[in-house]
């Protein structure tokens, strides 16, 4: 899939946005950053809801904006999910879904309402179709909002913090649906968030924005493992690994997850064997030993090789990038320990992982 070219320059009083990026044409790209960093403005520019005076936007070879070109929002083949569901109050749920579907060409030219049916199924809103928006809960509304955006058979889905307006419980209710979208959708998704857990769970590609500029951009796992610019998703540096549930230990209520050669035990959350899952390992939970520790309470102990060392947020601390099989892990150690152990690129060590969070 061709990438999405975004080159924008926009200046408002007290705010500017300037970027020149090629976003991947597949998977979920998270636009991550604090509020006011320009995430929403960027997404609105891509949708054509905002017009940057200078810029070029090209989606899979189609130019949406250029010096002499401007494709209005309603002619861009996109789906947009707003932070508040913004359902039309004068229509039922089905009326909301059909609004866009009726106005968009079905793929293949037939009248097959495939996008709509698939959206209803994916978001589990079949029982709600005849209801009015005011009779839905916040979580249900946002599911309808997402389904409505998908019902137009978009070629790209733009989501502006779809969970931000929901409380924790509603978020947990919707996240599984978003993970299903992630598994099943073939179109690229641009997903704005300032919530680390959403990014860790959903993103394939990460773009970190700060004050209208791109701080870092790249595949999620690589970007999180960078030492020159430790990207903190939330409070701490750490990596996200992708793996498969390989084994269930009934007696101790543990699951074994295979992540690119590294085998990790996590608490059993009831996930089925064979499922694709993600785990998150924070740098502060990883320690390094030269020999395999005996008599330790720590369950996850892996052989690894030091890949690189970098500075951390405090002069006493170092971040170590380690390679365990094909999995990259960050560890936080003091400079003194690093010196004592003689940590250097290429050194074979053991890592102890105190906590692995199954996402």
């Amino acid at each position, binding site marked *: 899939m061709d990438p999405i070219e975004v080159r924008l320059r926009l200046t408002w009083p007290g705010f500017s946005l300037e970027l020149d990026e090629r976003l991947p044409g597949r998977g979920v790209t998270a636009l991550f950053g604090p509020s006011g960093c320009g995430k929403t403005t960027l997404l609105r520019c891509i949708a*054509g*809801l905002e017009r940057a005076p200078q810029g070029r936007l090209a989606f899979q070879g189609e130019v949406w904006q250029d010096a002499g070109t401007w494709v209005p929002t*309603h002619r861009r083949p996109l*789906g947009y999910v707003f932070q508040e569901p913004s359902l*039309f109050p004068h229509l039922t749920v089905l009326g909301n879904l059909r609004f866009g579907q009726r106005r968009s060409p079905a793929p293949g030219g037939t009248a097959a309402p495939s996008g709509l049916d698939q959206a209803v199924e994916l978001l589990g809103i079949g029982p709600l179709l005849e209801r009015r928006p005011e009779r839905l809960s916040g979580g249900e509304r946002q599911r309808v909002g997402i389904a409505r955006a998908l019902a*137009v058979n978009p070629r790209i889905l733009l989501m502006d913090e779809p969970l931000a307006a929901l409380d924790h419980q509603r978020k947990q209710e919707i996240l599984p649906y978003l993970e299903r979208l992630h598994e099943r959708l073939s179109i690229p998704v641009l997903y704005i968030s300032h919530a680390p857990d959403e990014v860790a769970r959903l993103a394939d590609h990460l773009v970190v924005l700060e004050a209208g500029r791109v701080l870092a951009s790249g595949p999620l796992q690589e970007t999180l493992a960078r030492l020159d610019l430790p990207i903190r998703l939330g409070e701490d540096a750490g990596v996200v690994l992708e793996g498969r549930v390989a084994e269930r230990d009934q007696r101790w209520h543990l699951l074994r997850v295979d992540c690119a050669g590294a085998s990790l035990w996590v608490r059993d959350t009831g996930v089925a064997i064979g499922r694709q899952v993600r785990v998150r390992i924070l740098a502060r939970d990883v320690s390094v030993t030269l020999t395999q520790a005996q008599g330790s309470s720590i369950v996850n102990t892996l052989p690894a090789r030091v890949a690189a060392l970098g500075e951390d947020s405090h002069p006493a601390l170092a971040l170590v990038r380690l390679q365990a099989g094909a999995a990259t892990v960050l560890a936080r150690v003091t400079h003194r320990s690093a010196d004592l152990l003689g940590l250097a690129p290429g050194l074979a060590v053991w890592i102890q992982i105190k906590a692995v969070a199954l996402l």
Partner: protein
Amino acid sequence: MPLTDADLQALWLTIRLAATVTLILFVIGTPIAWWLARTRSGWKGAIGAAVALPLVLPPSVIGFYLLITMGPNGPLGQLTQALGLGLLPFTFWGLVVASLFYSMPFMVQPLQNAFESMGTRPLEVAATLRASPLDAFFSVALPLAAPGFLTAGILTFAHTVGEFGVVLMIGGNIPGVTRVASVQIYDHVEAMEYGDAHRLAAVMLVFSFLVLLAVYSARPNRPKG
């Protein structure tokens, strides 16, 4: 005692006038209200003030200027003569034109409020769902502003029914052509026919109350904030 034929004729004329004006103002007032609600132009203040002028001007002032404008030497009068329509003052259509100006704020302001209170979000949503701006106006903005349209229509109709000064300046007092109910009441009073005046006045009073009752009860009681 029932209303006289002249009274009924005046009432019927009043209803025809008010209905015509309301219908025409829906067509003229909607785009003006939309523009006022959406524009960032510097003209917004001036146009808004011009639309609201009839709220504060004495009807005789409006009537006077309209009489001049529609008269044989006025620009509108020259236009209507050139088109072979003759002159508008002292005709039914002269009353209609005058009432359009006079009742304009009662149409535009409720509509403008309705459009402003819905914000831009529903239209943005419509655009992301492939609706062109015109399509979005008809399929989203109009239905969402429906209560505003109801209020605007009722107020415009009622206000046109209640006008007197402008009618007298522009229309005079021609039975079946320009003698509306308010003028008929004035005539009764001038002729010391207080009984007749009472009956017609009572009809107007009850009508006006019912109209306002409809407007105020149709408005949902939204909690503040």
